[in-house]
């Protein structure tokens, strides 16, 4: 059985890995550009399970367990140094209390911190403008490209074939079976087709077999500084009460990354410039952690949040086709979901259903029957 995976990002890599572990030997990955040219090479490398829907919480918790296993299995690196959501307004702490109860029900030990406790987690915060925080000690971050490359090299050694700089232009079907992918370098035949081509890539490719895929790539502009010795203790600090939920993280290499959800033209070119986002993004974070006003800003880049109407991924079979599957639309959380994405898609392809039942809520069918995922709180 030959399986064709379209998209060489974190999702495609983990799908290939999980299929290999279950005995599939003939796997071809088709990638339009180079390894992880999409979101997987443009994100900030953080993970958490403290979300606001049961779907996200259950799947992300399992995904983190898998990431932790992959430290020994694949030599991947990650560190659980926690997420710190800062409340500026006292009433936000009530929301945090509710969230913490919700998380604890699923076994995620988040807790609400007083101003003094916050200082232990991150020294130097401006206590005059902070009411408290929510802390998730199980969240963390990872060196992204190091992990991606390790996974890629492992897959290559295990016999997965990669076609880089090869774009899948359309899928070729006969009745309800996909026969081949017509690519920029010729036609590729297979028995099963899995599309994990990010947001726009997946939408455009599925449109060639008359499937409407509701995702839009929202433009994001993370900003990085020169490298510094460790300034940030937790993996991520998020300013909950400021619109666009500004956040800051420090990479393993020392660069400090600032980001904020600032509206831009959806699917703006990767080379388009928005120099004004720098000031808008760093200002609220520097209010919270004033020492950051002394850092040197090096560059910013562009990436996309592959956003679906309910901000949850779309997984599983694409009806009415018998041999077509999808994993895309992670709405800005696809890196951390990589391992669970691989597991669930392998379940669907080989067993016809996911081993974690709640994942059934995330198929494309939900938009047809109007059963979108509900969250208990929306951040930002």
């Amino acid at each position: 059985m030959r399986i064709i995976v379209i998209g060489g990002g974190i999702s495609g890599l983990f799908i290939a890995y999980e299929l290999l572990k279950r005995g599939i030997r003939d796997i071809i990955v088709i990638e339009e550009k180079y390894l992880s040219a999409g979101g997987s090479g443009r994100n900030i490398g953080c993970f958490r399970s403290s979300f606001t829907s049961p779907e996200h919480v259950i799947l992300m918790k399992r995904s983190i367990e898998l990431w932790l296993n992959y430290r020994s299995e694949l030599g991947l690196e990650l560190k659980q140094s926690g997420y710190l959501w800062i409340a500026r307004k006292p009433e936000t702490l009530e929301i945090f209390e509710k969230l913490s109860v919700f998380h604890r029900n699923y076994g995620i030990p988040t807790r609400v911190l007083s101003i003094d406790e916050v200082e232990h987690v991150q020294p130097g915060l401006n206590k005059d403008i902070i009411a408290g925080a929510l802390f998730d000690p199980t969240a963390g971050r990872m060196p992204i490209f190091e992990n991606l490359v390790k996974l890629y090299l492992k897959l290559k050694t295990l016999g997965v074939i990669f076609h880089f700089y090869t774009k899948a232009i359309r899928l070729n079907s006969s009745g309800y079976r996909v026969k081949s992918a017509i690519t920029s370098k010729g036609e590729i035949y297979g028995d099963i087709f899995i599309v994990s081509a990010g947001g726009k890539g997946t939408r455009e490719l599925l449109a060639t077999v008359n499937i409407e895929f509701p995702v839009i790539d929202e433009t994001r502009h993370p900003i990085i500084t020169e490298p510094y010795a460790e300034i940030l203790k937790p993996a991520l600090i998020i300013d909950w009460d400021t619109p666009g939920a500004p956040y800051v993280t420090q990479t393993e290499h020392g660069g400090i990354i600032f980001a904020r959800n600032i509206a831009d033209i959806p699917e703006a070119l990767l080379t388009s410039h928005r120099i004004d986002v720098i000031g808008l993004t760093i200002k609220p974070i520097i209010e919270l952690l004033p020492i950051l006003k002394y850092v040197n800003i090096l560059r910013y880049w562009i990436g996309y949040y592959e956003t679906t109407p309910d901000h949850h991924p779309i997984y599983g079979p694409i009806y009415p086709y018998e041999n077509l599957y999808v994993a895309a639309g992670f709405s800005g959380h696809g890196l951390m979901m990589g391992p669970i994405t691989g597991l669930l898609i392998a379940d669907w392809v080989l067993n016809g259903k996911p081993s974690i039942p709640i994942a059934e809520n995330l198929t494309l069918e939900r938009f047809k029957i109007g059963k979108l995922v509900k969250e208990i709180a929306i951040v930002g």
Partner: protein
Amino acid sequence: MLGEKKPIIICRCNDVTIEDIINAVETGIDDFEVLRKYLKIGFGPCQGRSCLLLAARIFAKLTGRRIEEVISEYRVRPPIVPIPARVLLAGVIE
């Protein structure tokens, strides 16, 4: 010490040596853009002005390609030279 081989630095901003590049290619990295991101060549304060062509030439030679084939995705990003955050804060209007 006399006679001891000194590391040959290719990317001064991020301390990447020629050995790092050779090792990466030997472990199976077969794309310059992946190599660049993996070793952070060109991601330092000079954004590759001093190292990029050097690294690309070495990579091209190691993989038997032409230099113009290997540099495809490299971009210099604003603000071009590092700027102190406090300078960029001036005049921010929400």
